[in-house]
């Protein structure tokens, strides 16, 4: 990771062409260096963080005065940093009998801050949680004493997590974890604090900026979706082809514990919705044997979405994995113990993330924890099912090969789709799909759960969520349409995004039939569509043209009276 002075030097570089994001930073201690670190590191991530910084200790004035510069600036993201040192200052000033109220006083204030921001800005809020300070007044007994500072601080951190669960645009940036990883001695330098009100050392700022940008990236649809695993000496010790199944290190054999714990971590990622794939230089049957027979294997074949073991080069194999999964290389992480393979992949596919795994497998996990690779802005039930979905997709590919005629194949799938407006059950998944969809996304507007709730109740919008099921299984919610009433005559398609898993299944036609018939029934004469190009959505450049819309300036128009239903193989559920 680059150090602070390297990040500061980035500030003079040319930011043109980078993705702009408007951010406000408010803090109760000096935040100038934090702002420099954020903007400097943003440059490394190809984002132009346009940061407005509140004057020192102006958090409440800026937020509760609705005429303040904060609201005039209209940021997309508001970062709040209220430090543990200021919290300790407040605690010190309280009467003795008030000490145990500190956490609730602060939480009330934070709730008030959040709701005021939400009422007046369509922004997401990132709040830094509290790094631990033990003032050592009670010793260990602080843990048994509600009025101790440590008790109050930890309770506040816990209550903030509860608050974040209930408020979908409130995100915590966990700098407390970061202080645990780096140590308070690195995090905080007393002489600097006394002289300049800075509570974060220059050494730790790049890491704090990194944690923050991980979150911003996730909020704006950039995050990791897939892990590609090597096998020998990565998920078990030894070489399966040479050592044989009895001798690979797993469980209690040799340093097997390191690999077993690593596998548990991968399994948890899989359950969280990360797609796990294998890319190994091995004979396939030999590579699969431990998955099928070794009693200490945590990972099994049904955890793996795509399993490639052969003697071809890994770059080609990874390209194949990418084409099966249909996700961007920049959302993939390649884990391999072999520096040669890592370099080869890095050189040929620069977008892919290739961590420099430590030599000693005992260090794998701590190293990977610190990288914080798997940031996310949402989590839904569907995440836990994702591997199955991709395995089913692989099955469909095999079936498709049996049909020479595309229509016969699609017909044989017996596809049905449930079409519903947004409701409380589908809201998390709708929000998530809006954040995940980069390729099949006409306007690339990202919606939070709070945004979706607003749309669902607005009189100016009609909303549609589509699921798709077929004889192989349920794909879940895979397409979203948001229509905005523009006039008595016209509906504007504000958003159309779809999961790439279900391309070439006639879903586009089904969706267009559905919304055009809807528009006609409601008396609207026109549907208007728009394509806003991004680095990733070239796939839908001609979407409206192909569907028969007529070009009109930068928009596309469809006359609903003249519309004839398009051929599709999907029935309404």
């Amino acid at each position: 990771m680059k150090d602070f002075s390297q990040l500061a030097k980035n500030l003079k570089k040319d930011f043109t062409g980078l993705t702009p994001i408007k951010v406000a930073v408010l803090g109760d201690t000096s935040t100038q260096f934090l702002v420099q670190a954020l903007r400097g590191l943003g440059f490394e991530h190809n984002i132009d963080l346009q940061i407005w910084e509140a004057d020192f200790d102006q958090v409440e004035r800026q937020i509760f005065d609705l005429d303040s510069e904060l609201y005039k600036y209209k940021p997309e993201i508001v970062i709040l940093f209220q430090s543990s040192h200021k919290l300790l200052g407040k605690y010190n000033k309280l009467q003795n009998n008030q000490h145990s109220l500190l956490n609730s006083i602060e939480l009330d204030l934070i709730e008030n801050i959040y709701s005021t921001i939400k009422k007046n800005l369509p922004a997401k809020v990132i709040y830094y949680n509290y790094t631990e300070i033990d003032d050592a007044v009670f010793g260990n007994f602080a843990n048994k004493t509600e009025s101790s500072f440590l008790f109050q601080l930890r309770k506040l951190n816990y209550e903030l997590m509860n608050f974040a669960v209930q408020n979908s645009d409130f995100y915590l940036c966990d700098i407390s974890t970061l202080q645990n990883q780096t140590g308070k001695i690195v995090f905080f330098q007393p002489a600097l604090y006394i002289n300049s009100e800075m509570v974060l050392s220059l050494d730790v700022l790049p890491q704090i900026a990194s944690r923050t940008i991980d979150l911003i990236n996730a909020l704006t649809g950039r995050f990791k979706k897939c892990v590609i695993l090597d096998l020998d000496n990565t998920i078990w010790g030894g070489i399966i082809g040479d050592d044989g199944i009895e001798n690979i290190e797993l469980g209690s054999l040799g340093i097997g514990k390191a690999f077993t714990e690593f596998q548990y971590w991968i399994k948890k990622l899989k359950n969280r919705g990360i797609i796990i794939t294998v890319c190994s230089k091995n004979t396939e049957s030999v590579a699969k044997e431990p998955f099928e027979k070794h009693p200490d294997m945590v990972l099994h074949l049904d955890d793996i979405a795509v399993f490639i073991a052969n003697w071809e080069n890994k770059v080609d194999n990874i390209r194949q994995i990418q084409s099966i999964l249909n996700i961007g290389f920049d959302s993939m992480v390649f884990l391999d113990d072999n520096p040669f393979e890592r370099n080869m992949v890095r050189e040929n596919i620069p977008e892919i993330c290739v961590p420099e795994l430590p030599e000693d497998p005992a260090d794998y996990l701590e190293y990977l924890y610190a990288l914080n690779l798997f940031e996310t802005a949402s989590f839904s039930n569907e995440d836990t099912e994702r591997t199955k979905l991709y395995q089913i997709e692989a099955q469909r590919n095999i079936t498709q090969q049996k049909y020479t005629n595309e229509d016969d194949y699609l017909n044989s799938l017996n596809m049905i789709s449930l079409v519903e407006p947004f409701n409380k059950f589908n809201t998390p998944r709708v929000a998530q799909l809006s954040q995940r969809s980069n390729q099949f996304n006409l306007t690339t507007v990202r919606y939070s759960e709070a945004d979706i709730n607003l749309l669902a109740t607005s009189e100016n919008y009609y909303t549609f969520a589509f699921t798709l099921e077929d004889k192989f299984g349920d794909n879940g919610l895979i397409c979203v349409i948001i229509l905005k009433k523009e006039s008595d005559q016209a509906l504007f398609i504000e958003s159309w995004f779809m999961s790439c898993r279900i391309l070439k299944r006639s879903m586009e036609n089904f969706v267009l039939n559905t919304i055009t018939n809807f528009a006609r029934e409601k008396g609207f004469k026109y549907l208007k569509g728009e394509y806003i190009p991004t680095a990733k959505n070239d796939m839908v450049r001609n979407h409206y043209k192909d569907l028969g819309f007529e070009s009109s300036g930068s928009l596309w128009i469809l006359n609903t009276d003249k519309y004839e239903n398009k051929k599709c193989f999907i029935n309404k559920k």
Partner: protein
Amino acid sequence: MEKSEVLKQVNEIFIDVLEKEDLVINEQTVAKDIEEWDSLAHIRLVVAIEKTFKLHFSSREIQSWENVGEMIDCIYEKVK
């Protein structure tokens, strides 16, 4: 280490932190003389000097220097 050597290394640090390639400082230089040497830059200079010379300034020392000369004296006392 001689004082002149300390000054030379401190000069290098000033050049790097203030991003001013041809900057030459002497013992009489004060913050007013260099536009880029504001209170924020001062913190970065202090941290960079601590790192380079592997030493630690007390909070009182950081506040006490009136010019580069006093800064150099303070470093020299710790490294000589």
